[in-house]
């Protein structure tokens, strides 16, 4: 066994449209690396984290990957987007030494055959919808659920499969509305939505806009739908920005929020000790990614296997009923490329907090 550092490379969107997430992810990885190193590293080997900013542009991410991997012996990598994950996949297979996780929850990536060296740090988007639909089916059997999503790979990702799933769960999907990327004025879409009179509306493929406008106009028109979102909308600070429209907004979240003290969570305590101010869900994502990286590397080294993509991934898949220290409320098992666990949270504008609205749901 060598004593050289184990390197985690990172194409991190510290700037650009995804900066709000990148900054959190970066801090999360950093913190977990520090915790590990302070505890003596992995079997005597230190972790080294080498991030670079990408501005959330695929070509820059690729260049960053090339730069970091040609300057370091990299075994673990964090990538910033679906596009990057797909673009770099052939290179990962060729390189062979690296296991990668990233900020993308694209359904396509949840395929161990096509993406043998990658994994998702949570449920994929279809699974997120699954969790929401399961919750809806329980809360109001036979409900009408509208899907509103953006015209992008991100937005379209879970729609078709989720519609099928909704049917299976006895729900109906009276309308699916796709909005062009970057559109601001959604009044015609709202009219269409109102006509469908859904009981639930799930937004996907957005961060914030145009969700608040949808809700405001919908409410003005007398809609009674409940409004829901997926992971990247669900950070506490994002939902709070919705203002009055955001009250009661629900969505799926695989991790506990920073301020969630409802159950024992030693890791969250540690995070709160390290960083007294609120940390985003993206932070949690980065933190958990680093945790799983470390666990896989540890298992690899313990088994005396060289660190490479195949071994690391096998180690990851050997994880069973793993305790994340409370970041995820239930023990996790990683069979394939994702962690299909989550919980529905609901915004409470008075408390300025996201509060649990369901139990942990495992698919």
């Amino acid at each position, binding site marked *: 066994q060598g004593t050289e550092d184990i390197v985690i490379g990172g194409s991190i969107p510290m700037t650009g449209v995804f900066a709000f997430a990148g900054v959190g992810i970066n801090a999360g990885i950093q913190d977990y690396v520090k915790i590990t190193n302070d505890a003596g590293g992995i079997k005597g080997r230190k972790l080294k984290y080498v991030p670079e900013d990408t501005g959330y542009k695929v070509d820059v991410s690729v260049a960053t990957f090339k730069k970091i991997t040609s300057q370091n012996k990299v075994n673990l990598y964090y990538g910033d987007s679906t596009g990057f994950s797909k673009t770099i996949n052939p290179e990962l297979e060729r390189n062979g030494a690296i296991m990668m996780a990233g900020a993308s929850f694209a359904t396509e990536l949840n395929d161990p055959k096509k993406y043998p060296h990658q994994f998702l740090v949570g449920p994929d988007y279809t699974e997120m919808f699954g969790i929401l639909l399961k919750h809806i089916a329980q809360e109001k059997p036979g409900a009408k659920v509208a899907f509103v999503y953006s015209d992008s*790979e991100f937005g379209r990702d879970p729609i078709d499969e989720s519609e099928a799933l909704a049917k299976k769960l006895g729900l109906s999907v009276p309308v699916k509305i796709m909005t062009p990327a970057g559109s601001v004025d959604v009044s015609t879409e709202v009219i269409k939505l109102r006509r469908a009179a859904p009981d639930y509306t799930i937004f996907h493929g957005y961060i914030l806009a145009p969700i608040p406008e949808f809700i405001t106009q919908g409410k003005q028109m007398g809609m009674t739908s409940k409004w829901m979102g997926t992971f990247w909308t669900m950070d506490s600070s994002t939902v709070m920005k919705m203002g009055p429209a955001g009250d009661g907004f629900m969505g799926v979240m695989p991790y506990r929020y920073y301020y969630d003290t409802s159950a024992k969570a030693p890791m969250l305590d540690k995070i709160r000790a390290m960083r007294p101010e609120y940390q985003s869900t993206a932070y949690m994502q980065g933190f958990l990614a680093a945790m799983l990286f470390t666990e896989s590397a540890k298992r690899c080294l313990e088994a005396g296997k060289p660190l490479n993509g195949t071994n690391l991934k096998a180690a990851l898949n050997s994880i069973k009923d793993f305790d994340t220290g409370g970041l995820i409320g239930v023990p996790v098992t990683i069979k394939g490329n994702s962690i299909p666990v989550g919980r529905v949270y609901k915004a409470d504008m008075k408390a300025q907090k996201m509060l649990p609205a369901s139990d942990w749901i495992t698919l």
Partner: protein
Amino acid sequence: MRIGTLKESYIADAALFDSRTQKTWLAVAAALLVLFPFMASDYWLYLACLVSINVASATGLNILTGYTGLVSLGQAAFMGLGAYTVAVMETRLGTPFLLNLLAGGFVAMLGGIVVGIPSLRVKGLYLAIATIAASFIAHFIFANWSFTGGTGGLSIPPASLLGMPLDTSFRLYWVIVPITIVMLLGAANLFRTRIGRAFIAIRDRDISAEVLGIPLLRYKLLSFGLSSFYAGVAGGLWAYFFRVVTPESFPLLMSIFFLAAIIVGGMGTILGGILGAVFMTMVPELLKLVFDLLPNSAEYTVFLSPVRTIIFGLLIIGFLVFEPHGLAEMWRRVRRFFHLWPFRN
């Protein structure tokens, strides 16, 4: 007969590289290009390939916009056409690498010609905006057609040449760079003949060109076709280089990037297209290096991307305001300064 110069013949007068100085420097450059892959890291090789692809595409746009005066904001879309053609042929037909590239070029060329049809009636910036329409229509097709893999796009196995998979930057370098050089020579030759002259005439004043014997529609379409052929081949190379194409791979911003490249480099000169593409591709990378050199650079990282965006804009503005003829003109001035250095005699 008085020619007034010391050229031996008119042929020599029209040669691309005539002086001994030029030829020597050319040899030096060629040697550097050959040695480069053996000295550079994977990262630099990656950049070299990217630069080379961009040079090819920028040169194509230069033919259309710099020489023929037809402003196009569709260059990325034409690259996309080429890339998708290559992707589809490679994944579904498994035809050989070079054939796919050529097909990519021709499909893009066809697209270019179709987009060029309004150019007879629609002029100037009206036309430029109309070419944006082409980008969006192309995007729509890529994203909504199952044949092209929808929003998810297509993944492409490595190209193989003579049984060797071209799966590293090092191997791709030996294909991409020579192809680019061939395309550059082609473009340079073009402007020594009646075809290139006709393009320039159309740029300068199309209605009088017509009366002087140049069929406008044919030549405008030819220019669109050639330019998008270059874009298509560049897009094909791009596809083999990144090995995945998605509808988002060729955004409008990329078309703007190429337009910026030829402006910064110098419109209407081959050298300008080269210098511009190299410069604009390298600036963000160099900027990153500069940032890394700053004391406690980590603190400023959040500013890197905005700064990059600002610098991209400032470069365009700065060149237009202070050096409208671009890097090519600066280069000429430097050359005049050194004159025949080091072969002064």
